[in-house]
Protein backbone atom coordinates (compact mmCIF):
# COMPACT_ATOMS: atom_id res chain seq x y z
CA UNK A 1 0.00 0.00 0.00
CA UNK A 2 2.72 2.41 -0.95
CA UNK A 3 2.16 5.98 -2.03
CA UNK A 4 4.72 8.27 -3.67
CA UNK A 5 3.88 11.99 -3.55
CA UNK A 6 4.78 14.20 -6.48
CA UNK A 7 7.35 15.90 -4.25
CA UNK A 8 9.06 12.55 -3.52
CA UNK A 9 8.90 11.67 -7.22
CA UNK A 10 10.58 14.91 -8.26
CA UNK A 11 13.13 14.77 -5.38
CA UNK A 12 14.23 11.38 -6.69
CA UNK A 13 14.30 12.63 -10.29
CA UNK A 14 16.63 15.49 -9.27
CA UNK A 15 18.94 12.83 -7.83
CA UNK A 16 18.85 11.02 -11.17
CA UNK A 17 16.49 8.28 -9.99
CA UNK A 18 13.15 7.46 -11.62
CA UNK A 19 10.71 5.95 -9.13
CA UNK A 20 7.30 4.37 -9.65
CA UNK A 21 4.86 1.87 -8.21
CA UNK A 22 4.64 -1.82 -9.01
CA UNK A 23 1.23 -3.44 -8.71
CA UNK A 24 1.30 -6.55 -6.51
CA UNK A 25 -1.88 -7.82 -8.17
CA UNK A 26 -1.16 -7.44 -11.90
CA UNK A 27 2.61 -6.62 -11.96
CA UNK A 28 2.12 -3.47 -14.09
CA UNK A 29 4.36 -0.52 -13.22
CA UNK A 30 2.78 2.91 -12.82
CA UNK A 31 5.04 5.90 -13.49
CA UNK A 32 4.73 8.74 -12.69
CA UNK A 33 3.10 7.38 -9.53
CA UNK A 34 -0.60 7.83 -8.93
CA UNK A 35 -2.99 6.67 -6.26
CA UNK A 36 -3.99 3.45 -8.02
CA UNK A 37 -2.48 1.01 -10.52
CA UNK A 38 -2.67 2.49 -14.03
CA UNK A 39 -3.87 -0.86 -15.38
CA UNK A 40 -6.16 -2.53 -12.83
CA UNK A 41 -6.93 0.27 -10.35
CA UNK A 42 -5.55 -1.66 -7.38
CA UNK A 43 -4.20 0.02 -4.22
CA UNK A 44 -1.84 -2.92 -3.69
CA UNK A 45 1.28 -1.08 -4.84
CA UNK A 46 4.94 -1.22 -3.83
CA UNK A 47 7.67 1.33 -4.53
CA UNK A 48 10.12 0.48 -7.26
CA UNK A 49 13.05 2.15 -9.03
CA UNK A 50 13.00 2.17 -12.82
CA UNK A 51 15.92 2.14 -15.25
CA UNK A 52 15.17 5.68 -16.43
CA UNK A 53 15.70 4.57 -20.03
CA UNK A 54 13.25 4.45 -22.89
CA UNK A 55 12.54 5.50 -26.47
CA UNK A 56 10.98 8.64 -27.91
CA UNK A 57 7.45 7.87 -29.16
CA UNK A 58 6.46 11.40 -30.20
CA UNK A 59 7.49 15.02 -29.77
CA UNK A 60 6.50 18.59 -30.55
CA UNK A 61 8.65 21.69 -30.78
CA UNK A 62 6.68 24.41 -28.99
CA UNK A 63 7.32 27.94 -30.21
CA UNK A 64 4.31 29.67 -28.59
CA UNK A 65 4.08 28.58 -24.92
CA UNK A 66 1.44 29.35 -22.26
CA UNK A 67 2.16 32.43 -20.13
CA UNK A 68 4.51 31.59 -17.29
CA UNK A 69 6.70 29.51 -19.62
CA UNK A 70 7.89 32.20 -22.07
CA UNK A 71 11.40 32.40 -20.64
CA UNK A 72 11.96 28.71 -21.27
CA UNK A 73 10.59 28.72 -24.86
CA UNK A 74 11.06 27.45 -27.45
CA UNK A 75 11.37 23.90 -26.17
CA UNK A 76 10.78 20.34 -27.32
CA UNK A 77 8.22 18.26 -25.42
CA UNK A 78 8.31 14.52 -25.88
CA UNK A 79 6.64 11.35 -24.70
CA UNK A 80 8.92 8.43 -23.95
CA UNK A 81 8.03 4.78 -23.54
CA UNK A 82 10.12 3.46 -20.68
CA UNK A 83 11.82 0.06 -20.78
CA UNK A 84 9.38 -1.08 -18.07
CA UNK A 85 6.33 -0.09 -20.14
CA UNK A 86 4.86 3.20 -18.90
CA UNK A 87 4.93 6.35 -21.01
CA UNK A 88 6.18 9.58 -19.39
CA UNK A 89 6.21 13.17 -20.60
CA UNK A 90 9.11 15.61 -20.40
CA UNK A 91 11.39 17.81 -22.48
CA UNK A 92 13.92 16.47 -24.95
CA UNK A 93 17.40 17.96 -24.64
CA UNK A 94 17.64 19.14 -28.24
CA UNK A 95 17.17 22.46 -30.07
CA UNK A 96 13.63 22.82 -31.50
CA UNK A 97 14.90 23.55 -35.01
CA UNK A 98 17.13 20.48 -34.91
CA UNK A 99 14.26 18.32 -33.66
CA UNK A 100 11.98 19.47 -36.49
CA UNK A 101 14.77 18.88 -39.00
CA UNK A 102 15.25 15.32 -37.73
CA UNK A 103 11.44 14.92 -37.64
CA UNK A 104 10.63 11.18 -38.02
CA UNK A 105 14.28 10.27 -37.34
CA UNK A 106 13.91 11.45 -33.74
CA UNK A 107 11.13 8.92 -33.10
CA UNK A 108 12.53 5.70 -31.68
CA UNK A 109 15.76 7.29 -30.38
CA UNK A 110 16.91 5.97 -27.01
CA UNK A 111 16.99 8.41 -24.12
CA UNK A 112 17.73 8.61 -20.42
CA UNK A 113 15.68 10.77 -18.05
CA UNK A 114 16.86 13.14 -15.32
CA UNK A 115 15.27 16.10 -13.53
CA UNK A 116 15.92 19.83 -13.90
CA UNK A 117 14.63 22.44 -11.47
CA UNK A 118 12.89 25.63 -12.60
CA UNK A 119 11.19 28.44 -10.64
CA UNK A 120 7.52 27.76 -9.97
CA UNK A 121 4.84 29.75 -11.81
CA UNK A 122 1.68 31.44 -10.58
CA UNK A 123 -0.66 28.49 -10.96
CA UNK A 124 1.63 25.49 -10.44
CA UNK A 125 0.60 23.40 -7.40
CA UNK A 126 4.15 23.29 -5.95
CA UNK A 127 4.77 26.94 -5.07
CA UNK A 128 8.50 26.42 -4.36
CA UNK A 129 9.74 24.86 -7.57
CA UNK A 130 8.89 23.07 -10.79
CA UNK A 131 10.85 20.01 -11.83
CA UNK A 132 10.89 19.10 -15.51
CA UNK A 133 11.91 15.61 -16.64
CA UNK A 134 14.67 16.02 -19.24
CA UNK A 135 15.31 13.34 -21.85
CA UNK A 136 18.94 13.09 -22.99
CA UNK A 137 19.81 11.10 -26.10
CA UNK A 138 21.99 8.06 -25.42
CA UNK A 139 24.92 8.03 -27.87
CA UNK A 140 25.57 4.69 -29.42
Amino acid at each position, binding site marked *: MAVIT*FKEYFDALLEGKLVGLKCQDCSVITC*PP*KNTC*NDCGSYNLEKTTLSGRGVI*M*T*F*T*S*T*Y*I*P*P*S*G*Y*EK*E*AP*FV*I*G*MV*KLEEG*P*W*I*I*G*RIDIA*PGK*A*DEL*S*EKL*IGREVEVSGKE*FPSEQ*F*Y*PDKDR*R*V*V*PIFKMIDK
Partner: protein
Amino acid sequence: MKKRNVAVLGVGQTKFGSHPDKSLADLFADAFKEAFEKSNIEKKDIEALYYGNFNGELTDGSANMGGFLTDEVGLGMIPAYRYEAACASSQVAFREATRAVAAGYHDIVVVGGSERLHSAGTALGTRALATSVEGIHEITTGLGFPGVFGLVARLYAKEYNISIENLREKMAHVSIKNHKFGARNPKAQFYQKMGDLDVETVLSGRMISSPLSLYDCCPMTDGGSAAIVTTDKIAEDLINKPVYVLGTGQASGGALFRQGANLIKFEPRRKSSQMAYKEAGIKPDDVDVVEIHDCFTIAEIIATEALGLFDYGKGADAAEQGETDLGGKVVVNPDGGLIGKGHPVGATGTSQIYALTRILRDEFKSTSVKGAEIGLTDTLGGDFGTLCNVLLGRGR
Protein backbone atom coordinates in the same frame (compact mmCIF):
# COMPACT_ATOMS: atom_id res chain seq x y z
CA MET B 1 -38.71 4.62 -14.46
CA LYS B 2 -39.76 5.37 -18.04
CA LYS B 3 -37.76 8.21 -19.53
CA ARG B 4 -39.47 11.00 -21.41
CA ASN B 5 -38.40 12.00 -24.92
CA VAL B 6 -36.59 15.32 -25.13
CA ALA B 7 -36.67 18.04 -27.78
CA VAL B 8 -35.00 21.35 -28.51
CA LEU B 9 -37.06 24.57 -28.70
CA GLY B 10 -35.33 27.84 -29.60
CA VAL B 11 -31.57 28.16 -29.96
CA GLY B 12 -29.33 31.23 -29.89
CA GLN B 13 -25.76 32.22 -30.54
CA THR B 14 -23.85 35.49 -30.44
CA LYS B 15 -21.49 36.47 -33.19
CA PHE B 16 -18.23 34.71 -32.30
CA GLY B 17 -15.05 36.75 -32.23
CA SER B 18 -14.00 39.79 -30.24
CA HIS B 19 -16.33 41.27 -27.60
CA PRO B 20 -14.18 43.42 -25.31
CA ASP B 21 -17.29 45.40 -24.25
CA LYS B 22 -19.42 42.37 -23.31
CA SER B 23 -19.18 40.49 -20.00
CA LEU B 24 -19.63 36.74 -19.58
CA ALA B 25 -23.18 37.49 -18.42
CA ASP B 26 -23.84 39.76 -21.44
CA LEU B 27 -22.70 37.10 -23.90
CA PHE B 28 -24.91 34.48 -22.28
CA ALA B 29 -27.81 36.97 -22.13
CA ASP B 30 -27.57 37.78 -25.86
CA ALA B 31 -27.68 34.10 -26.81
CA PHE B 32 -30.46 33.40 -24.29
CA LYS B 33 -32.63 36.20 -25.69
CA GLU B 34 -32.49 34.74 -29.19
CA ALA B 35 -33.30 31.23 -27.93
CA PHE B 36 -36.09 32.47 -25.65
CA GLU B 37 -37.80 34.55 -28.33
CA LYS B 38 -37.99 31.54 -30.65
CA SER B 39 -39.48 29.22 -28.05
CA ASN B 40 -43.00 30.65 -27.56
CA ILE B 41 -42.70 30.42 -23.79
CA GLU B 42 -42.73 32.87 -20.89
CA LYS B 43 -39.89 33.43 -18.47
CA LYS B 44 -41.89 31.76 -15.68
CA ASP B 45 -41.97 28.52 -17.71
CA ILE B 46 -38.20 28.04 -17.34
CA GLU B 47 -37.45 25.87 -14.32
CA ALA B 48 -33.64 25.69 -14.23
CA LEU B 49 -30.52 27.08 -15.88
CA TYR B 50 -27.56 24.93 -16.95
CA TYR B 51 -24.45 26.95 -17.74
CA GLY B 52 -21.15 25.87 -19.26
CA ASN B 53 -18.10 27.99 -18.57
CA PHE B 54 -14.51 26.85 -18.57
CA ASN B 55 -12.34 29.47 -16.99
CA GLY B 56 -14.15 32.66 -16.01
CA GLU B 57 -11.98 32.60 -12.88
CA LEU B 58 -8.81 33.30 -14.86
CA THR B 59 -10.12 35.36 -17.78
CA ASP B 60 -12.65 37.52 -15.94
CA GLY B 61 -12.07 36.92 -12.23
CA SER B 62 -15.59 35.48 -12.04
CA ALA B 63 -16.85 32.21 -10.59
CA ASN B 64 -20.25 31.09 -9.25
CA MET B 65 -21.97 32.62 -12.27
CA GLY B 66 -25.25 30.69 -11.97
CA GLY B 67 -27.12 33.09 -9.68
CA PHE B 68 -25.86 36.16 -11.50
CA LEU B 69 -27.09 34.74 -14.80
CA THR B 70 -30.62 33.89 -13.66
CA ASP B 71 -30.83 37.45 -12.30
CA GLU B 72 -29.29 38.97 -15.44
CA VAL B 73 -31.89 37.45 -17.78
CA GLY B 74 -34.85 37.77 -15.43
CA LEU B 75 -35.44 34.17 -14.44
CA GLY B 76 -35.87 34.86 -10.73
CA MET B 77 -34.86 32.33 -8.11
CA ILE B 78 -34.72 29.14 -10.22
CA PRO B 79 -31.79 26.82 -9.54
CA ALA B 80 -28.72 27.35 -11.70
CA TYR B 81 -25.83 24.96 -12.27
CA ARG B 82 -22.40 25.73 -13.65
CA TYR B 83 -20.63 22.91 -15.51
CA GLU B 84 -16.89 22.90 -16.13
CA ALA B 85 -15.42 20.26 -18.42
CA ALA B 86 -13.00 22.47 -20.35
CA CYS B 87 -14.05 22.62 -24.03
CA ALA B 88 -16.93 20.21 -23.38
CA SER B 89 -18.46 22.40 -20.63
CA SER B 90 -21.75 23.38 -22.25
CA GLN B 91 -22.08 20.06 -24.09
CA VAL B 92 -21.99 18.31 -20.72
CA ALA B 93 -24.41 20.95 -19.39
CA PHE B 94 -26.71 20.21 -22.34
CA ARG B 95 -26.55 16.47 -21.71
CA GLU B 96 -27.36 16.96 -18.03
CA ALA B 97 -30.25 19.28 -18.93
CA THR B 98 -31.72 16.64 -21.25
CA ARG B 99 -31.36 14.00 -18.56
CA ALA B 100 -33.17 16.17 -16.01
CA VAL B 101 -36.05 16.68 -18.46
CA ALA B 102 -36.08 13.01 -19.48
CA ALA B 103 -36.24 11.97 -15.84
CA GLY B 104 -39.14 14.32 -15.14
CA TYR B 105 -37.34 16.64 -12.72
CA HIS B 106 -37.98 19.62 -15.01
CA ASP B 107 -40.27 20.33 -17.97
CA ILE B 108 -38.51 23.34 -19.56
CA VAL B 109 -34.91 24.40 -18.90
CA VAL B 110 -32.35 26.66 -20.52
CA VAL B 111 -28.81 25.55 -21.22
CA GLY B 112 -25.97 27.62 -22.59
CA GLY B 113 -22.45 28.85 -22.17
CA SER B 114 -20.15 31.82 -22.55
CA GLU B 115 -16.41 32.49 -22.55
CA ARG B 116 -14.04 35.41 -23.15
CA LEU B 117 -10.74 34.07 -24.43
CA HIS B 118 -10.11 36.58 -27.23
CA SER B 119 -10.42 39.45 -24.77
CA ALA B 120 -8.07 37.65 -22.38
CA GLY B 121 -5.25 37.95 -24.94
CA THR B 122 -3.09 35.18 -26.33
CA ALA B 123 -0.75 34.67 -23.35
CA LEU B 124 -3.43 34.50 -20.63
CA GLY B 125 -5.80 32.69 -22.99
CA THR B 126 -3.21 30.02 -23.72
CA ARG B 127 -2.48 29.64 -20.01
CA ALA B 128 -6.20 29.44 -19.22
CA LEU B 129 -6.56 26.66 -21.78
CA ALA B 130 -3.48 24.92 -20.40
CA THR B 131 -5.19 24.56 -16.99
CA SER B 132 -6.98 21.62 -18.59
CA VAL B 133 -3.87 19.60 -19.33
CA GLU B 134 -2.80 17.34 -16.45
CA GLY B 135 -1.78 19.70 -13.67
CA ILE B 136 1.47 18.24 -12.26
CA HIS B 137 3.42 16.26 -14.84
CA GLU B 138 2.16 17.70 -18.13
CA ILE B 139 1.95 21.40 -17.31
CA THR B 140 5.45 21.48 -15.80
CA THR B 141 6.86 20.77 -19.28
CA GLY B 142 5.08 23.88 -20.64
CA LEU B 143 2.59 21.77 -22.57
CA GLY B 144 -0.28 23.74 -24.06
CA PHE B 145 -3.01 22.63 -26.43
CA PRO B 146 -1.15 23.07 -29.70
CA GLY B 147 1.52 20.91 -28.05
CA VAL B 148 -0.98 18.20 -27.12
CA PHE B 149 -2.12 17.89 -30.72
CA GLY B 150 1.41 18.25 -32.07
CA LEU B 151 2.27 15.11 -30.06
CA VAL B 152 -0.88 13.43 -31.38
CA ALA B 153 -0.13 14.33 -35.01
CA ARG B 154 3.30 12.69 -34.89
CA LEU B 155 1.85 9.58 -33.23
CA TYR B 156 -0.75 9.41 -36.02
CA ALA B 157 1.87 9.78 -38.75
CA LYS B 158 4.01 7.03 -37.19
CA GLU B 159 1.11 4.63 -36.52
CA TYR B 160 -0.24 4.84 -40.06
CA ASN B 161 3.11 5.21 -41.81
CA ILE B 162 2.44 8.65 -43.28
CA SER B 163 5.30 11.13 -43.67
CA ILE B 164 4.95 14.37 -41.70
CA GLU B 165 4.98 16.37 -44.96
CA ASN B 166 2.17 14.24 -46.35
CA LEU B 167 0.16 14.42 -43.13
CA ARG B 168 0.50 18.23 -43.10
CA GLU B 169 -0.99 18.35 -46.59
CA LYS B 170 -3.87 16.10 -45.59
CA MET B 171 -4.49 18.19 -42.45
CA ALA B 172 -4.51 21.33 -44.58
CA HIS B 173 -7.71 20.11 -46.24
CA VAL B 174 -9.49 20.21 -42.88
CA SER B 175 -8.45 23.85 -42.44
CA ILE B 176 -9.46 24.76 -46.00
CA LYS B 177 -12.91 23.16 -45.61
CA ASN B 178 -13.66 24.61 -42.19
CA HIS B 179 -12.51 28.09 -43.18
CA LYS B 180 -14.66 27.81 -46.32
CA PHE B 181 -17.74 27.11 -44.18
CA GLY B 182 -16.73 29.66 -41.54
CA ALA B 183 -16.33 32.42 -44.14
CA ARG B 184 -19.98 31.89 -45.16
CA ASN B 185 -21.36 31.92 -41.59
CA PRO B 186 -22.30 35.45 -40.45
CA LYS B 187 -21.89 34.39 -36.80
CA ALA B 188 -18.39 32.98 -37.35
CA GLN B 189 -15.25 34.72 -36.12
CA PHE B 190 -13.79 34.53 -39.64
CA TYR B 191 -16.94 35.51 -41.55
CA GLN B 192 -15.95 36.65 -45.04
CA LYS B 193 -12.31 35.84 -44.29
CA MET B 194 -10.05 33.05 -45.56
CA GLY B 195 -12.87 31.39 -47.49
CA ASP B 196 -10.56 30.32 -50.30
CA LEU B 197 -7.39 29.08 -48.64
CA ASP B 198 -5.16 26.71 -50.58
CA VAL B 199 -2.75 24.01 -49.38
CA GLU B 200 0.30 26.16 -50.09
CA THR B 201 -1.02 29.02 -47.93
CA VAL B 202 -1.94 26.69 -45.08
CA LEU B 203 1.51 25.08 -45.14
CA SER B 204 3.22 28.48 -45.10
CA GLY B 205 1.68 29.47 -41.75
CA ARG B 206 4.10 30.09 -38.91
CA MET B 207 4.91 27.04 -36.80
CA ILE B 208 3.09 27.04 -33.43
CA SER B 209 3.84 23.60 -32.02
CA SER B 210 5.29 21.33 -34.65
CA PRO B 211 3.98 19.90 -36.90
CA LEU B 212 0.99 22.22 -36.35
CA SER B 213 1.19 25.69 -37.84
CA LEU B 214 -1.12 28.67 -37.60
CA TYR B 215 -3.91 27.48 -39.91
CA ASP B 216 -4.05 24.11 -38.16
CA CYS B 217 -5.24 25.87 -35.00
CA CYS B 218 -8.60 27.30 -33.92
CA PRO B 219 -8.55 30.93 -32.74
CA MET B 220 -9.12 32.53 -29.32
CA THR B 221 -12.75 33.59 -29.20
CA ASP B 222 -15.36 35.47 -27.17
CA GLY B 223 -18.93 34.28 -27.51
CA GLY B 224 -22.12 32.84 -26.05
CA SER B 225 -24.70 30.23 -27.02
CA ALA B 226 -27.96 28.87 -25.63
CA ALA B 227 -30.74 26.35 -26.22
CA ILE B 228 -34.06 25.71 -24.54
CA VAL B 229 -34.89 22.09 -23.85
CA THR B 230 -38.21 20.43 -23.05
CA THR B 231 -40.20 17.24 -23.66
CA ASP B 232 -41.27 16.17 -27.16
CA LYS B 233 -44.95 16.71 -26.30
CA ILE B 234 -44.48 20.22 -24.93
CA ALA B 235 -42.29 21.14 -27.89
CA GLU B 236 -44.88 19.91 -30.39
CA ASP B 237 -47.47 22.18 -28.76
CA LEU B 238 -45.19 25.20 -28.84
CA ILE B 239 -43.30 25.26 -32.15
CA ASN B 240 -43.54 23.94 -35.70
CA LYS B 241 -40.20 22.20 -36.02
CA PRO B 242 -38.99 20.60 -32.81
CA VAL B 243 -35.64 18.87 -33.14
CA TYR B 244 -35.43 15.69 -31.10
CA VAL B 245 -32.63 14.50 -28.83
CA LEU B 246 -32.18 10.91 -30.03
CA GLY B 247 -29.35 9.92 -27.73
CA THR B 248 -26.42 11.23 -25.70
CA GLY B 249 -23.14 9.79 -24.46
CA GLN B 250 -20.25 10.77 -22.23
CA ALA B 251 -16.95 9.20 -21.18
CA SER B 252 -13.72 10.08 -19.38
CA GLY B 253 -10.01 9.60 -20.00
CA GLY B 254 -6.85 10.28 -18.00
CA ALA B 255 -3.69 12.22 -18.77
CA LEU B 256 -2.14 11.88 -22.22
CA PHE B 257 0.87 9.92 -21.02
CA ARG B 258 -1.35 7.48 -19.07
CA GLN B 259 -3.11 6.52 -22.31
CA GLY B 260 0.12 5.69 -24.10
CA ALA B 261 -0.28 3.76 -27.32
CA ASN B 262 -4.10 3.90 -27.07
CA LEU B 263 -4.07 7.67 -27.45
CA ILE B 264 -4.88 8.01 -31.14
CA LYS B 265 -7.57 5.31 -31.01
CA PHE B 266 -9.36 7.56 -28.55
CA GLU B 267 -11.26 4.85 -26.64
CA PRO B 268 -13.21 7.28 -24.42
CA ARG B 269 -14.58 9.00 -27.55
CA ARG B 270 -15.52 5.63 -29.03
CA LYS B 271 -17.29 4.73 -25.78
CA SER B 272 -19.14 8.05 -25.56
CA SER B 273 -20.34 7.98 -29.16
CA GLN B 274 -21.32 4.29 -29.00
CA MET B 275 -23.42 5.12 -25.93
CA ALA B 276 -25.23 7.79 -27.96
CA TYR B 277 -25.69 5.56 -31.03
CA LYS B 278 -27.06 2.76 -28.86
CA GLU B 279 -29.53 5.02 -27.07
CA ALA B 280 -30.73 6.35 -30.45
CA GLY B 281 -30.83 2.89 -32.01
CA ILE B 282 -28.71 3.98 -34.98
CA LYS B 283 -25.32 3.26 -36.53
CA PRO B 284 -22.55 5.76 -37.39
CA ASP B 285 -23.43 5.38 -41.08
CA ASP B 286 -26.90 6.80 -40.37
CA VAL B 287 -25.40 10.19 -39.41
CA ASP B 288 -25.70 12.87 -42.12
CA VAL B 289 -23.97 15.82 -40.51
CA VAL B 290 -21.51 16.20 -37.63
CA GLU B 291 -20.30 19.10 -35.54
CA ILE B 292 -16.85 17.87 -34.50
CA HIS B 293 -14.37 19.25 -32.01
CA ASP B 294 -11.76 20.50 -34.51
CA CYS B 295 -9.62 22.52 -32.09
CA PHE B 296 -6.80 21.51 -34.46
CA THR B 297 -6.91 19.92 -37.91
CA ILE B 298 -5.55 16.61 -36.62
CA ALA B 299 -8.23 16.65 -33.90
CA GLU B 300 -10.98 16.53 -36.54
CA ILE B 301 -9.26 13.65 -38.31
CA ILE B 302 -8.87 11.41 -35.28
CA ALA B 303 -12.39 12.30 -34.11
CA THR B 304 -13.97 11.14 -37.39
CA GLU B 305 -12.29 7.78 -36.80
CA ALA B 306 -13.20 7.27 -33.13
CA LEU B 307 -16.80 8.29 -33.88
CA GLY B 308 -16.94 5.38 -36.31
CA LEU B 309 -17.46 7.55 -39.40
CA PHE B 310 -14.23 6.29 -40.99
CA ASP B 311 -11.94 3.36 -40.20
CA TYR B 312 -8.90 3.95 -37.99
CA GLY B 313 -6.09 5.33 -40.14
CA LYS B 314 -8.44 6.48 -42.91
CA GLY B 315 -9.58 9.84 -41.49
CA ALA B 316 -6.74 11.85 -43.03
CA ASP B 317 -7.39 10.39 -46.48
CA ALA B 318 -11.13 11.02 -46.09
CA ALA B 319 -10.44 14.70 -45.34
CA GLU B 320 -8.11 14.99 -48.32
CA GLN B 321 -10.60 13.31 -50.66
CA GLY B 322 -13.52 15.56 -49.69
CA GLU B 323 -15.43 12.82 -47.86
CA THR B 324 -16.19 15.26 -45.04
CA ASP B 325 -17.28 18.10 -47.34
CA LEU B 326 -20.67 18.73 -48.93
CA GLY B 327 -21.40 15.80 -51.24
CA GLY B 328 -19.05 13.51 -49.29
CA LYS B 329 -19.90 10.58 -47.02
CA VAL B 330 -20.76 12.81 -44.04
CA VAL B 331 -20.65 16.60 -43.77
CA VAL B 332 -18.33 17.72 -40.98
CA ASN B 333 -18.53 21.18 -39.42
CA PRO B 334 -20.79 23.01 -41.90
CA ASP B 335 -20.83 26.05 -39.59
CA GLY B 336 -17.03 26.33 -39.83
CA GLY B 337 -16.21 24.30 -36.73
CA LEU B 338 -13.84 25.64 -34.11
CA ILE B 339 -11.30 26.55 -36.79
CA GLY B 340 -13.60 28.70 -38.93
CA LYS B 341 -16.34 29.71 -36.51
CA GLY B 342 -14.22 30.21 -33.44
CA HIS B 343 -13.93 28.48 -30.06
CA PRO B 344 -15.35 30.33 -27.03
CA VAL B 345 -14.64 27.23 -24.99
CA GLY B 346 -17.60 27.16 -22.59
CA ALA B 347 -19.99 28.21 -25.37
CA THR B 348 -18.75 25.77 -28.01
CA GLY B 349 -20.92 22.79 -27.00
CA THR B 350 -24.25 24.60 -27.25
CA SER B 351 -23.10 26.39 -30.41
CA GLN B 352 -22.85 22.92 -31.99
CA ILE B 353 -26.44 22.31 -30.83
CA TYR B 354 -27.35 25.71 -32.31
CA ALA B 355 -25.91 24.87 -35.73
CA LEU B 356 -27.32 21.34 -35.96
CA THR B 357 -30.78 22.37 -34.73
CA ARG B 358 -30.96 25.08 -37.37
CA ILE B 359 -29.62 22.76 -40.07
CA LEU B 360 -32.26 20.13 -39.19
CA ARG B 361 -34.91 22.90 -39.39
CA ASP B 362 -33.62 24.03 -42.81
CA GLU B 363 -32.90 27.43 -41.26
CA PHE B 364 -29.11 27.40 -41.54
CA LYS B 365 -28.80 29.44 -44.69
CA SER B 366 -25.02 29.91 -44.94
CA THR B 367 -24.42 26.21 -45.61
CA SER B 368 -27.47 23.99 -45.98
CA VAL B 369 -27.06 20.24 -45.75
CA LYS B 370 -29.87 19.04 -47.98
CA GLY B 371 -31.91 16.13 -46.73
CA ALA B 372 -30.03 15.83 -43.43
CA GLU B 373 -32.10 13.80 -40.98
CA ILE B 374 -29.63 13.02 -38.20
CA GLY B 375 -26.89 15.18 -36.73
CA LEU B 376 -24.16 14.34 -34.22
CA THR B 377 -22.27 16.70 -31.93
CA ASP B 378 -18.86 15.90 -30.53
CA THR B 379 -16.83 17.76 -27.94
CA LEU B 380 -13.55 16.97 -26.30
CA GLY B 381 -12.79 18.56 -22.95
CA GLY B 382 -9.15 18.95 -21.99
CA ASP B 383 -6.37 16.70 -23.21
CA PHE B 384 -8.62 13.69 -23.77
CA GLY B 385 -10.28 14.02 -20.34
CA THR B 386 -13.99 14.48 -21.15
CA LEU B 387 -15.86 13.30 -24.22
CA CYS B 388 -19.48 14.14 -24.85
CA ASN B 389 -21.80 13.44 -27.80
CA VAL B 390 -25.39 14.33 -28.64
CA LEU B 391 -27.51 12.93 -31.48
CA LEU B 392 -30.26 15.16 -32.84
CA GLY B 393 -33.02 14.18 -35.28
CA ARG B 394 -35.27 16.14 -37.59
CA GLY B 395 -38.96 16.27 -36.71
CA ARG B 396 -41.15 14.06 -38.87
